[in-house]
């Protein structure tokens, strides 16, 4: 009784995800025929991880092509509206695939040094990004949960994938436990929303809420729990406590993946739920999210100040970035959403590049690089130091030399100030926080440029692939930092082209006006 849902429509709507997961499974099968451990030919087996990682990159490109084609065709989501087919999904898909491809390159680079990864790690990464892509298109709480878990489960494993490392195991267990708990909150929120509204489709929820004179406590507690769960996932303060430890312990490529791509996906779904699904209730959650953003920005930046461990520093910095991104969700209109997309592109590039440099200077050791490791980098590898500076400045939001990072902040600020209810105070908090962030980013710069190279510190060497990754990321940041229009055009198209199944009940922007009359 496959009513109204022809298999063809589903296939069309989910083609990229299917391609990616299918490819990932092929890679998994390929990996299993790789000799390892005490089997004969294990030495070549280690090579295999690199090969598979490269295939993974190619797969990402292919799927990216599929996404582009789907977008160009104006492919719709599923007819029942549970999977979106709008530009937002496709754009986020592209960012996710970009991040995955770069993370796979990082993986390859790290593997060349430490040989820490089994051949199934690339496919794990691809499976995680399948989950993320599901998240990007999810318009139903069920799909949200499915995507979150698909992503998280793979990433839990990735965090602990270096079996020789106790640090990796500790990171995995912490990430896993916190992740499971946050899933619990998320799920309870979903259950209460389902109980209150009778549906898990965002569209139905919106329509239900729009029809209510007052929102029931059940609904509101569902929203609150959902918010908590999502805040855990995006590592917003005060639900961020797992982040530094997990980022610190996980292998560097995985950390890059977590801090850029996982965050992208989490924010995509956060935005979709809050803006598309719960916009009607905006007056009720608005204040909570406001404080969440403000506290996250402050906490992330302040705690980052005292870190000497570069990965922990970047972990706190990623918390701060989560705060910036939250601002765009609070704004909630099309401008905010496109700012979000632009931001994650820039953030992905900068993060992957920065971790590429960290992998290079770490040389495959099983510990996180510190300021001492990077000190005097300029004296031995000047271009590497310059690239790292670009990435750090991009994090910081410095114009020209920080490239896209500046426009990322610009667009968020613009959205915040242009919104129907301008978020001036948040904007000011954001810039002050950015100024504070300069202190620790520049501490790294100053370590690289102004401190002598410690005795006995080896000269880092890179693989060609990693080198090209770093160079590409830096150049892309710089070029799009002077001419951000293409990316912004993309982001803008993403938020203006909506599929036929998009929610007619809640056009963005007008939502606020409707809800203004909702009595508190």
């Amino acid at each position, binding site marked *: 009784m496959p009513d109204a849902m022809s298999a063809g429509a589903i296939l069309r709507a989910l083609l990229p995800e299917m391609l990616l997961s299918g490819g990932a499974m092929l890679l998994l099968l390929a990996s299993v025929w790789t000799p390892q451990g005490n089997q004969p030919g294990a030495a070549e087996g280690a090579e295999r991880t690199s090969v598979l990682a490269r295939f993974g990159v190619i797969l990402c490109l292919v799927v990216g092509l599929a996404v582009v084609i789907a977008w160009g065709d104006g492919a719709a989501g599923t007819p029942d509206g549970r999977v979106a087919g709008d530009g937002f999904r496709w754009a986020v898909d592209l960012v996710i695939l970009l991040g995955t491809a770069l993370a796979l390159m990082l993986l390859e680079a790290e593997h060349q040094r430490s040989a820490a990864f089994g051949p199934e790690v690339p496919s794990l990464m691809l499976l995680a990004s399948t989950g993320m892509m599901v998240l990007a298109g999810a318009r139903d709480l069920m799909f949200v949960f499915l995507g979150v878990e698909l992503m998280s489960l793979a990433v839990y494993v990735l965090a602990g994938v270096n079996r020789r490392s106790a640090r990796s195991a500790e990171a995995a267990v912490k990430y896993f436990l916190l992740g499971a708990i946050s899933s619990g909150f998320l799920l309870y929120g979903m259950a209460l929303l389902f109980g209150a509204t009778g549906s898990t489709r965002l569209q139905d929820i919106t329509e239900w809420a729009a029809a209510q004179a007052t929102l029931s406590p059940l609904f509101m507690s569902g929203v609150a729990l959902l918010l908590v769960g999502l805040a855990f996932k995006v590592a917003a303060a005060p639900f961020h406590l797992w982040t530094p430890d997990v980022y610190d312990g996980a292998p560097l490529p995985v950390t890059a993946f977590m801090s850029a791509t996982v965050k992208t996906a989490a924010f995509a779904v956060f935005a979709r739920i809050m803006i598309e699904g719960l916009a009607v209730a905006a007056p009720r959650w608005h204040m909570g999210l406001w404080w969440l953003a403000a506290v996250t920005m402050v906490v992330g930046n302040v705690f980052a100040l005292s870190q000497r461990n570069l990965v922990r520093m970047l972990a706190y910095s990623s918390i701060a970035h989560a705060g910036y991104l939250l601002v765009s969700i609070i704004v909630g209109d099309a401008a905010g959403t496109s700012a979000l997309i632009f931001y994650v592109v820039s953030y992905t590039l900068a993060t992957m590049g920065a971790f590429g440099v960290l992998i290079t200077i770490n040389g495959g050791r099983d510990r996180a690089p510190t300021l001492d490791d990077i000190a005097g980098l300029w004296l031995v590898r000047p271009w590497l130091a310059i690239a790292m500076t670009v990435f750090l400045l991009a994090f910081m939001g410095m114009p*020209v030399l920080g490239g896209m990072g*500046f426009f990322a902040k610009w667009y968020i*600020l613009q959205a915040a100030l242009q919104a129907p209810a301008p978020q001036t105070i948040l904007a000011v908090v954001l810039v002050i926080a950015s100024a504070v962030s300069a202190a620790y980013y520049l*501490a790294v710069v100053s370590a690289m440029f102004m401190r002598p190279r410690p005795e006995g510190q080896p000269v880092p060497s890179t693989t060609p692939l990693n080198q090209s990754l770093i160079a590409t990321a830096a150049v892309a940041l710089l070029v799009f930092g002077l001419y951000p229009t293409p990316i912004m055009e993309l982001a803008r198209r993403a938020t203006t082209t909506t599929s036929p199944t998009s929610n007619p009940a809640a056009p963005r922007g007008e939502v606020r006006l409707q809800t203004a009359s909702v009595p508190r």
Partner: protein
Amino acid sequence: MLLSLGIDRWVLPAMLLWPVLAAVLVRIGGRDVSRDDAGNEAPSGGPDARVLTLAALAVEALLAVAVWGVFDVDGRGWQARVDIPWLADLGATLSLGVDGLSLPMVVLTAFVVPLALLGSWNNVRVRTPAFGALLLLLTSGLVGVFITLDLLAFYLAWELMLIPTYLLVGVWGAAGTSRASLRYVLFTLVGSLLMLVAIIALWNAGGGTSLHIDHLLQVALSPRAQLWMFLAFFAAFAVKSALVPFHTWLPDAQSAAPTVAAVTLGLKVGAYAILRFAIPLFPAAAMDYTVRSTILVLSVIAVVYGALVAMAQRDFKRVISYSSVSHLGLIMLGSFVLTPQSVQGAVMSIVSSGIATTALFLLAGMLEDRRATTAFSAFGGLAKVLPWFSVALIVSMLSTVALPGTIGFVGEFLVLIGTYAEFPVLAVIATSGVIFAAVYGLRAVQQLLFEKVDTEANGALPDLSGRERFVMVTLVAAMVYLGVAPHAILQRADRASQALIESVRFGPNAPTTLPPVSLSR
């Protein structure tokens, strides 16, 4: 002739982009002298990076001359204006142009930087390709600040100065200066990021269609919005130009920085930006009684305080820094008094301060090259040993303390006259600052040049080399020439300052209670 070549179409973009291009060339193609010296490595091919840098800067100076050449003294509005499409979605264009206010700044910058490099040729001897590249980037930023008419482009140029300066000070400065340079960046950044918020808000208020200053000047704002935006802009500019009480980073950074960086730090970019953006964009806020009087009082305090503190310094470089702080007070005074004389005086003061500070820092750098210190206690009686040096120092110092006949006098005189007409009390107090300036200037001269040669090493110091002489003679000549013939600048700044005052008085945001300014002089 120049116009017939269409030079005004490309000269400004060239000034902006050439240094960036040259920076890449220098970094890649330049040769690091120190490596040759150390003999560690076979000398890599290519010319000395310093030579390359200097050549690139010379080209920049030539371009500046061209701009000067195409500038129509009687013209109105922007000259040599170019609009390059850029970010259509924001309404940002790469709009470049100069007027009487910015022209002197552009030329000043384009000349001072190469002279400073030449004058401190041996100040930096390690990793010169990177040094040259950063200097060129910095130059691009400096020039960009003066010639961009679009606020986004301006902001980019403004921030572009930051990181090169940070690295120049931190890497090539005295040991342990990374903290000072970090402080500089952080101070500046807080201000400029607030300005960023204000820029976006302003753009937004203007309909979000254009970031061009001409457009934004026409945007009507509520007094409250104006006030906040003005404060944000002012914060950025005041920190950058080191107005008391935001000046604390300046002496530390300048005294630690390599000479060229100290010179660029001494350029009054912030003061220019206040004249160009903060005042005309938000006139009601700038002319608001409370705001204006606060700033005026601060300016006067800066004049006196800077001079007094300069008197108490034991290091030559710090004296220069504080004199620069003191000058800034005068410039601010002139800017906010906002009479035609005072504005012109402010422009003159920016130029004079730029030249004099450059000269003094170069001289300090020369001392430092010879003795590795600039503390007064290490010197004395140099007049006999270093005659060329002494002459240059005396002239520069006299210009700094505004002796008639030097450029310094023109600027201060105009500012004080303008102020006197409006705020006699402030003018009188500010004048006392000039007297203190004489004290610290003479004291510095005396301690360096005229006491006994009490240190063995000072007896055998070599006088200025030919290269150093060339630089100092150029600078001294400029001081004296502009001192006796300030017309070259005043004539060009006249219209621009008139236009500024008009826009303040008659723009959409004109203050309701007009400041008592007489337009007809």
